[in-house]
């Protein structure tokens, strides 16, 4: 137990790394839930597609060459984030056009949306498996995780790459926050989330706004996919567990609330890192922690930490 306490800063840092990725994915869930009041079950496949897309581009550019210079690595990281984001946005857009829009036109009940999303999710992950192989822990070129130890904070070993992950996640979250709060697009997203028919009466193009919302969420998830893939490996089923956990994070922070999703993601990441390290529990129960958190939040405070702002409560 005292070891646990001793290593707590290390767990916190690792939790922040994971949590920032969960936060990015959770933002996608929350955004779509805000405008459409439905869970985008296939969001996990958007996440996966970002990893694959960035891998394909990076691999074709650099091949298997090892240890390029630091500047080149930085450029490749930025390229990976960009390509991941673009792939994610593209897949999210296709998803909205194919799986959701026909049902919206028809006024289908919620169950139809959920089932359509499930079908799309399975189809996409298995198609990726067929096209790119079903190995579940492929890796990016090795220079992405150099275990480059920078400095210590207490017992936490601050490595370079996790720091990059946390940093880029924070930058993206700030960017999204500004986008939603200050731009015209952000205003239309908030308007549609609050009251769609009235927004339409005010002259907002609902279809286009919803499309753009999907794309924004998809871009964030795609970039998160790139980061997750470099840090933990990727495969065609990589999206499933992080997707569920990110949804738990979104609910934890308050579904529909953008800042809530960010906070929920970070909190869940930290909890997931700290709790299974307790001697009584063990790391084999890591995945269960997210579900337990989800159930507890839904039982005790369904509106989440920050409460719901966009959209309605459970």
């Amino acid at each position, binding site marked *: 137990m005292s070891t646990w306490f001793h290593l707590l800063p290390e767990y916190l840092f690792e939790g922040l790394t994971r949590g920032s990725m969960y936060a990015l994915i959770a933002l996608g869930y929350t955004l779509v839930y805000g405008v459409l009041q439905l869970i985008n079950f296939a969001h996990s496949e958007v996440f996966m597609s970002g990893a694959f897309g960035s891998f394909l581009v990076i691999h074709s550019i650099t091949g298997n060459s090892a240890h390029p210079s630091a500047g080149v690595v930085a450029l490749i990281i930025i390229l990976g984030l960009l390509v991941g984001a673009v792939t994610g946005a593209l897949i999210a857009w296709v998803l909205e056009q194919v799986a959701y829009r026909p049902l919206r036109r028809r006024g289908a009940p919620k169950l139809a949306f959920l089932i359509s999303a499930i079908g799309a999710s*399975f*189809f996409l992950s298995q*198609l990726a498996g067929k096209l790119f192989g079903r190995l579940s822990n492929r890796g990016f070129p090795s220079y992405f995780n150099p275990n480059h130890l920078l400095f210590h904070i207490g017992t936490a070993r601050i490595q370079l790459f996790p720091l990059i992950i946390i940093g880029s996640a924070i930058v993206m979250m700030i960017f999204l926050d500004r986008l939603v709060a200050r731009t015209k697009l952000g205003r239309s997203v908030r308007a549609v989330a609050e009251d769609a028919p009235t927004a339409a009466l005010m002259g907002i193009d609902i279809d286009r706004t919803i499309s753009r919302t999907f794309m924004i969420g998809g871009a964030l998830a795609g970039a998160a996919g790139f980061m997750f893939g470099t840090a933990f490996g990727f495969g065609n089923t990589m999206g499933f567990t992080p997707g*569920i956990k990110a949804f738990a994070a979104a609910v934890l922070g308050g579904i529909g609330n953008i800042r809530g999703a960010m906070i929920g993601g970070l909190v869940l990441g930290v909890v997931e890192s700290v709790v299974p390290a307790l001697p009584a529990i063990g790391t084999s129960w890591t995945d269960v922690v997210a579900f337990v958190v989800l*159930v507890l939040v839904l039982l005790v405070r369904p509106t989440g930490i920050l409460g719901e702002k966009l959209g309605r409560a459970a």
Partner: protein
Amino acid sequence: MSSPTFNSFRKNPLVVRLVVCLAGGVVLALMWGSQEGSTTDSAHAFTEAVLAPRIVGFLALGVLVWALISFWPRVRPYVVRPGAWPLVSGVVTVGAALFLMHWDDQVGNAKFSAVSSAVADTSGLAPLVTIYFGWLYWVGLLIVALLSAATIVTRRSLLGWIAAALSVVMGVLGLIAHSTLLDFTGGIDHSTGPFVALAGYVVIAAAAIAAGTSPEQVAQSRAFMAGLFGWRPGLPLVVVGALATIWALASATWFSPQNSNLTLSDTRTTFEGTGLSSLAVQYLAWLGWVSLAAAAVLTGAASYLRHRLLGWIGALVGAVGVVLTLITLYDISDLGAQNKFNSATGPWQNLGIGGWLACLGLFLIGSGGVIAAITPKSASGGATAEPIRSVLVPSRLRAAGDTLTQYRSLALAGAALVLFYPPMATLFWQKVLVIEVGVYVLLAIGLNVVVGWAGLLDLGFIAFFAIGSYTTAFLVGALPRKPPSWLHLSPLLAIPFAIIFCLIAGVLLGAPTLRLRGDYLAIVTLGFGEIIRIIAINNPGNFTNGPRGATNIPHPVIHLGPIHVTWGLDSLPYWYLLVVIIGIVLLLFYRLENSRLGRAWAAVREDEVAAQATGINATKVKLLAFAIGASTSGVAGVFFATQVGYINPDNFVLNNSILVLAYVVFGGMGSLPGAMAGAAVLTWLPEFLKDQVPSDDRVMWIGAIVLLMMILRPAGLIPAKRRKAELSGLQGTSSAETTAVPASEGL
């Protein structure tokens, strides 16, 4: 970039649709085939799929679909004419028979292409065989199809009759060529390709006749089917049953020891003077034919004359005929086992399809008698003998009784197939029927209660399956922790315990979560499923034996007084156990849908707030649905555990939950026959196509099917009557703004 011409080009619906269809063709090209991604060359599968000549075919398919959709108004008048859809289905059936089914088990992989090339290389065959397998099979089909299509377009009855005659000739020629070929190659043969092709050709013939002679502009297929079954209730069953029994008694194999196919008369000569019981001897000699004749005449007269008593008598004679056949089959095979024919170890072995086909036919005849007896005379116009032609002209109002007769006839025919087809199937298909089809049908029935009737999206359904299986494993002592010695049970007795544990688990899961909205419920149940699987793997307290799972689960036994039944490795007895289990479940659920509870479920599903306002306790009602679905899944888990004999956590992955959901959605959410049909079709199809489609891709295709179903036909294969109205939704009456966001709060 935003020049007016480009924008108008971009927004032109025809162009947009063409792009979408072409993209769909490319996606289909990516899905189809056995290219596999490799980790060394990431673009490998992609190039093999898309940058290959076959992409032209897929793009052409996309263009064809686009043309069909875009010019549908011009095509539609022809497509709805009488005979159009039957023609298409007949041609598809013949095509399936030619591409997928077996034509001669002794040649290569037994498919038509192998047989055809073998025939081309062999000399000394009868000219009919060489011609048929050489070019006649496709030329004939093409001519028949074209003639029938011409009949549909021009509506000339002469063309229709010619097409029908040619079609029947083609089908019969196929049969003759097949049996000549069998005489040539010899050996035991179970191929059914020619029979399926014959069925297809008969359908094409019927389509051509209908197209040529029907005075209607638009096909009234529902009224036609109802009228066909209702004209003389029970008669179609009697006719089909009589034909099947005649075939069985005349030329099907009854007994096949040591690679010889013995028909009924051959069996009689083989068993002459061997001490076979006199009943069996007489059956083989004349009793079989007499019972067929008696049953057929009685029931035929009963249905033609609409006579109730005759119908019951005919049904009784049919039932007696079935029993006689079964006794004869038992005696033959028992004697054969005693004489060690073909190393048989007990009765019911070495039997051909003949006896079972006779049982099937007699059962159908009896069913026809039952239908004739229970259909009241007032349905379909009374006792006046209407000409058969009247079914083609639905000008008079059909009574509702016609549809009921149709459903009853189909249900009884389905029962006949369920009882008597599995013994006729090959060993491979028997195994598929028991392990895949049967278990998933039971699971689909359970999930239908939760998702279809109560509207709760349960994604962790496989968890209850796991609980049922592990309960069984525990109670028979296959897990590390043994139960107390007084609790050591035989597998079938674990069923009540499995039900209880699943009920408890269902209530434990449901109580806190059922007051949540549907989206949350889905995720929480998914989490529950995963938690159960992780518990099974993590093996806390050494209870579940971790990833190794439980092995050595004994097979079921029944020792009840004089009844001793054991199950072993043979798949067929499990099928009948499954039929009994599913029968009991169906009996219980059939009434449930229209009961007070069923209506409460429908109310909660459609609008929970309104339902609560009328006094329904929504939470209690939802909990009941959860519990009932969970216990059905638990029973399926018991059956699975004892039948396979070993379980491990890999049997209970999330994929299987999603598969069961897909089966229920595909078949029709909320409709009991729909859920069963969906499960049966979607478990049968991958096995049927296992040479065409790699088994790894199964989940991908099923995902695509679910997605397409929700977009195009959310009501499913066999829609529940209530559901169909719900899911078709508002048809284009609202503008984009008001339907942009899903309107309903409830499911």
